């Protein structure tokens, strides 16, 4: 479904990604692990075209998406839950969700999608008219995920959704992810939390200083000492 080959990217004089290759098949749930500053967010932001590619290929459902604008990537069916949630803080929960279904196609199914999201996260339902900025961290993360789901994506990318959340909320969110995956959604999960990720994904890539150093099935990686070593950056 998504195929990245030899991709590079960076900011100014800095080269961050150096020849990253990665593949996600339809219906998979794939993890992308890596320490701080490994370049994980840079990679997913390149996919979403918030950050420009400097080289390589990024093919989604058979067509090159590396030169599209960010909104066009969303229209194609890739939705990102960005790091730090990035909600519209002064807008209500409902307005944030409505904006999630902004693309022309998504608008037609807005009320159906809204029902789906509120079913998934009933807590949001109670907070419908509350400003997003006043929600708790966990609720904000639910809203960020809900907003991304409103566009009815084919591929959902989540950038460190567990960051700064209490274990209870982390559990809620991973349960929701598992449920959506079971319903057929393809997911790319960026995380720092090694064990949690390996327990929840089928395959995993480990990014280290802009390069994929290890990849494989999660079962195989679970007891691989090289993973821990690479991951801890030692």
């Amino acid at each position, binding site marked *: 479904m998504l195929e990245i080959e030899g991709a590079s990217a960076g900011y100014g004089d800095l080269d961050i990604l150096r020849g990253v290759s990665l593949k996600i098949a339809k219906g998979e749930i794939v993890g992308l692990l890596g320490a701080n500053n490994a370049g994980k967010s840079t990679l997913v932001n390149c996919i979403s075209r918030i950050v420009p590619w400097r080289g390589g290929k990024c093919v989604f459902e058979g067509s090159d998406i590396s030169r599209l*604008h*960010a909104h066009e990537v*969303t229209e194609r069916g890739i939705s990102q839950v*960005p790091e730090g949630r990035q909600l519209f*803080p002064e807008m209500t929960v409902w307005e944030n969700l409505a*904006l999630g279904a*902004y693309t022309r196609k998504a608008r037609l199914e807005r009320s159906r999608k809204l029902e789906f999201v509120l079913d998934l996260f009933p807590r949001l339902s109670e907070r419908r008219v509350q400003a997003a900025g006043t929600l708790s961290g966990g609720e904000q993360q639910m809203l960020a995920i809900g*907003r991304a789901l409103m566009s009815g994506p084919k591929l959902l990318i989540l950038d460190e959704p567990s960051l700064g959340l209490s274990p209870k909320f982390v559990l809620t969110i991973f349960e929701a992810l598992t449920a959506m995956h079971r319903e057929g959604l393809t997911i790319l999960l960026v995380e720092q939390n090694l064990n949690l990720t390996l327990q929840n994904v089928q395959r995993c890539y480990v990014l280290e200083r802009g390069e994929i150093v290890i990849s494989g099935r999660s079962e195989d990686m679970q007891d691989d000492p090289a993973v821990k070593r690479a991951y801890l950056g030692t």
Partner: protein
Amino acid sequence: MIPPSSGLIWGLEMEILYQGVIQGVLIGSTYGLIALSMGLIYGVSGITNFAQGDLMVLCMFMTLTLSTLLNLDPYVSILITMPVIIAVTAVVYRYLIQPISSQQLMVIQLTLGLMFVIQNGILMVYGGNFQRVPSVLDGDVLVIGDFAVVQTSLLISFVATWGLAGVLFWTLGYTDFGRSVRAVHQNAKAAALVGVDVRRTQLIVVSLSAAILAVSASLLVAGRPIHPGEGLHYTVVALMPFVLGGMNNLLSILVSGIIIGVAETLGNVYLNGPLGFAVPYAVFIAILIFRPQGLFGSRS
């Protein structure tokens, strides 16, 4: 005992005050409208357009030309000035400003440069005299209650301003387009991620702002003389409510416009010449000293 005549003078005094306040409220609404057009651009792109007043004066002189050539009333010429000024602004924004939008200082430089280009362009074409654009409503007045006499043109600008503002608030508050504008304002990156074409939204808002300028120009031109050098004055009287209103709260910008308008008219009524002109600035500075966060902003 009060001599009988002092009651009469007191009455006259009050009438002058009422007149001044009403006049100020009416004219200030239109200042607020110009400020609103500035606030819109600022909200989606972070740009303060210092040429805003001159763009409006350009519209005013267009109505002058349309009046001399085609005998069009300023209210009717909106139909022509609006598309023209939208086109001019959109082209300037798209091809001059957007390419350098990440460099704040250069953008400021550019809008200042634009201000001088427009101002001198108008001077070259029309000369430096005050001119009047005739309107069907010239000299028309309305009597409100038993004390206030107001120019019909001012009343029309007041009603048009609030009507337009109402439509704008509704659009921003309750439509998909409006939500996308607010999204770009609050978090441009997230807006792009949900599928908003950020650059296109900015361009549309800039065009909308130009459309508001065309309307403001016609509203102001009916009943007051125009001069090529007035652009900066309008920019400043718009900048003040824009700052007082808290930069991006549209309703408070409009209300702040009224405060500046009232300060200006009362300054002109009670103080002579330059001192009178300084009153709105004094009020502006006084408000900022006591409420540096703007009139309606909260401390944070």
